[in-house]
């Protein structure tokens, strides 16, 4: 196989290594949290690409300009795939829609909205999420009111808000 084709599949190979590292770390290192194992997987994939690209530069005597551009392309592609993988893992851990689907799957003869809310109430949803957010220092609860802490989720929420303003302007966004 030509070396150019190996370069093409590098982000995909990085993603496979990412997934393998993530799953292995979750299965073997039991007390490692989901977020930590995802980070570990991402780092493993990222550095494997970087090491491959540097060895390519050293052993194949490629040009530095070409090395830099291909490395940037592969690292951006890999980071995008890593982001997608992270979202995919999130679907099976905390996604509300997945929880609904499980409730629907459990119930014989379908489920009504009322029954769905009964099984997983807004109070329970809020309690679970706010507990996680408080524990990770994203928000604080004081006298029955929630306050924001300037953490990474705050930055992400701000970015999404700005992006929404850029794409949709002041138009109302509905489904």
């Amino acid at each position, binding site marked *: 196989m030509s070396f150019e084709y190996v370069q093409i599949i590098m982000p995909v190979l990085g993603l496979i290594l990412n997934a393998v590292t993530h799953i292995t770390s979750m299965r073997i290192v039991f007390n490692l949290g989901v977020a930590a194992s995802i980070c570990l997987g991402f780092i493993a994939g990222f550095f494997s690409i970087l090491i491959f690209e540097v060895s390519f530069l050293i052993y194949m005597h490629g040009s530095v300009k070409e090395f830099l551009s291909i490395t940037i392309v592969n690292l951006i592609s890999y980071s995008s795939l890593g982001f997608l993988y992270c979202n995919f893992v999130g679907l099976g851990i905390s996604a509300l829609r997945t929880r609904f689907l499980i409730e629907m799957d459990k119930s014989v003869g379908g489920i009504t909205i009322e029954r769905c809310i009964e099984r997983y109430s807004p109070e329970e949803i809020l309690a679970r999420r*706010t507990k996680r957010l408080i524990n990770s220092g994203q928000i604080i609860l004081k006298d029955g009111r929630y306050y924001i802490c300037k953490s990474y989720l705050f930055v992400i929420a701000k970015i999404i808000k700005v992006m929404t303003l850029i794409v949709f302007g002041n138009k109302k966004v509905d489904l």
Partner: protein
Amino acid sequence: MKVLFYGLTLFCLAFFVHLAVWRYCIPNNRKKMLIQIFIGTLAIGILALWEKIHFITIFGLDSYVNLPEMIHLSLFFLSLTITYFVIYNAMVIGSVTNTIITCIMDTGLNGLDKHALEQRMRDELLLRIKCLINDKIIYDNSGRYFLTSKGILYLRIVRFYRKLMNYTDEIG
């Protein structure tokens, strides 16, 4: 160098076309339109570069791309596009956590009352059911909701991956 330059240029071009269309009038079938804009831009871009238009040289780059470069460029463009689709989805219907953070953030120093947030969660719940119907993951049969074959497949994949991760905590 060509893959990086043309990949980013094509992605920016597709993004600006999407921005112009959305600013003019938000289409009814947004997902389909979004796919058409991005894939259309990639197809036209690749065709233009593949046709060996040698008189076009931008920043000293020859416009011609060979087969491996074309595949590399397409994968680069597609990975950026799919990531943007996920971000776009977050803009339309964000995660519950993002909704909570945004709601608290909007109240500033006053903070947000617990009950106001509970009411917002109720709305989020209904919004997600509407979203699942729109995506044809569930269907409504006289007020009762059932999984479609797409929904069953989705759930199977999620359950398989949870098993693979050895993750036993409840979802939600």
